[in-house]
């Protein structure tokens, strides 16, 4: 398996709190890795370290053999690691179409960034094709900040996917989305990803979503990986059920 992303022994502390303690993992471009953990377990911190928003206190993060531990988010994105956010990071006062158009421009799909018009027949077609693929074309001219949460999430993910990343990190892609829309939303994402060589790492609280879409799962607790393996194995691990999924969900069968 092609290990595109490798995390080797990273540690991160915020004062007395350990957000990452000797975390080791790897991700290939042909797998969907689910990350689970209780609130404060260090999942988002982990994503933030991989994408350069935070620097680990120690340890190494490699992408295709290159040490990216000290790189800026912009540089990491340029290498091919893109991300979406728990709170969608969009351009709220611009239209959905403009959000995608700008993403296309910055990703360099439309070249000559200083002088050539961004709005061309080609860029319009590309942006509209992306909106159709993510099933948000009906919202084309709406201000992004006024969209329903699920659509904002999709827009955020669509923007993260522009530029054909090798690794896509999704931070709670279904949070705030109604229960009946979660699967539809994940289906849309997986449909778009199908056929492309993209390794997906997604942080998720909904165990049904994790069980259904992950090829592998990592469980975090207090900054440590407590279990790793195929979904059924990890989600039924008594330690994970106690520490991560929580007593109130013990009865939930996965």
């Amino acid at each position, binding site marked *: 398996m092609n290990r595109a992303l490798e995390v080797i022994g990273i540690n991160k502390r915020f004062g007395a709190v350990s957000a990452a303690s000797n975390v080791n993992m790897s991700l290939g471009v042909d797998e969907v890795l689910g990350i689970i953990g209780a609130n404060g377990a260090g999942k988002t911190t982990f994503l933030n370290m991989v*994408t350069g928003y935070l620097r680990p206190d120690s340890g190494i993060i490699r992408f295709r053999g290159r040490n990216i531990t000290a790189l*800026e*988010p*912009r540089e990491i*994105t*340029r290498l091919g690691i*893109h*991300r979406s*956010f728990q709170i969608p*990071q*969009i*351009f*709220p*006062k*611009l239209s959905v179409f*403009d959000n995608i*158009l*700008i*993403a296309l*421009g*910055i*990703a*360099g799909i*439309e070249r*000559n*960034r*200083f*002088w*050539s*018009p*961004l*709005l061309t027949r080609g860029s319009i077609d590309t942006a509209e094709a992306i909106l159709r693929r993510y099933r948000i074309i009906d919202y084309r001219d709406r201000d992004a900040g006024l969209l329903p949460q699920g659509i904002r999430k999709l827009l955020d993910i669509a*923007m*993260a996917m*522009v*530029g054909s990343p090798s690794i896509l990190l999704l931070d709670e892609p279904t949070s705030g989305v109604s229960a009946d829309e979660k699967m539809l939303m994940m289906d849309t994402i997986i449909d778009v990803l199908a056929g492309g060589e993209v390794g997906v790492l997604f942080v998720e609280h909904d165990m049904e979503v994790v069980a259904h879409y992950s090829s592998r799962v990592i469980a975090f607790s207090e900054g440590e990986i407590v279990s790793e393996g195929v979904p059924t194995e990890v989600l039924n691990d008594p330690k994970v059920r106690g520490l991560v999924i929580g007593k109130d969900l013990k009865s939930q069968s996965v």
Partner: protein
Amino acid sequence: MILRIRTTWCLHIAVIVLLGVQVLLPAWVVNMIALSLSNGLVVLGLMVIMRAGLVSFGHGLFFGLGGYGAALGAVFFGISDAFVLVLLGIVASTLIAFLLGFMIASYRGIFFALLNLAFSMLLFGILVNSAVLGSTDGFSVPVPSYMGYVPSSGETRVSFLLYGLICVAVYGSALAVHRYLNSTMGYMGEAIRENEVRVDYLGGSVKKTIMVKYVISAILAGMGGAFTVLLIGHVTPEDTVFWTRSGEFVFVAILSGTGNVAAPFIGSAVFEFVRTYALQYAPEVWQMLLGGTLLLVIMFLPNGLWSLLQGGNSKGGRT
């Protein structure tokens, strides 16, 4: 896209009209138009950074550098050609903007605005304490030549050539800025204003983008300053670098709106018109009239006068 083409055509027509009206209008009106256009260049520069959500309270710095650059070239280096003098003004403002940009591009909001003000007041302090530059009185600038042609002393101050040069420079600048604002780098300004984090995570350089915008705005301000000094024939620190001058540019920028490259020139012309008539007919309360005008615009046209030409589109879309 249609709006973009329409803007380009409007600019083509505007430059022809502006060049043509010189023979029809009285000299004082032509002078007012020329001054409006020169000041409009500075406001156009402000518009470029305002689209990225940044306001500068110190663009008099670059206006002054442009003005003093041209004036020093004429008086101390004996350069008489208007093209070279304007170029000197642009080079002076660009160089300083490039140097300051490394620091200023990291700041946002009130810090960005006031840092510019601080640097402009620093230059003001240097100029008023410099006897060789005429201190607060400044110094006069001789009538420039145009590729060897020297207007006769009988001609009005605003010679056809200087007026024409300003019109063509404004036309070229507006077209170039329009083109730039519709490129990826132009759109990135709005993206930065909306969400810097997302720009970073799309792989865009926020600092580099702001730096480029800052330098572009300084080039335009420097050009405006150089033209103004050549028009007036005199340069003083108070008329160029002082904070009230910077405030005036921000005032016009708010009055104009940032919806289109033509807006700063329209706003600048309205400002000059209101100021001229207010000074003439109500010399005791002219500042109140200007303030009242701005208040009305903010209350009823929050996107500036340009929104009137957009058919009342309160969103103030990009064109």
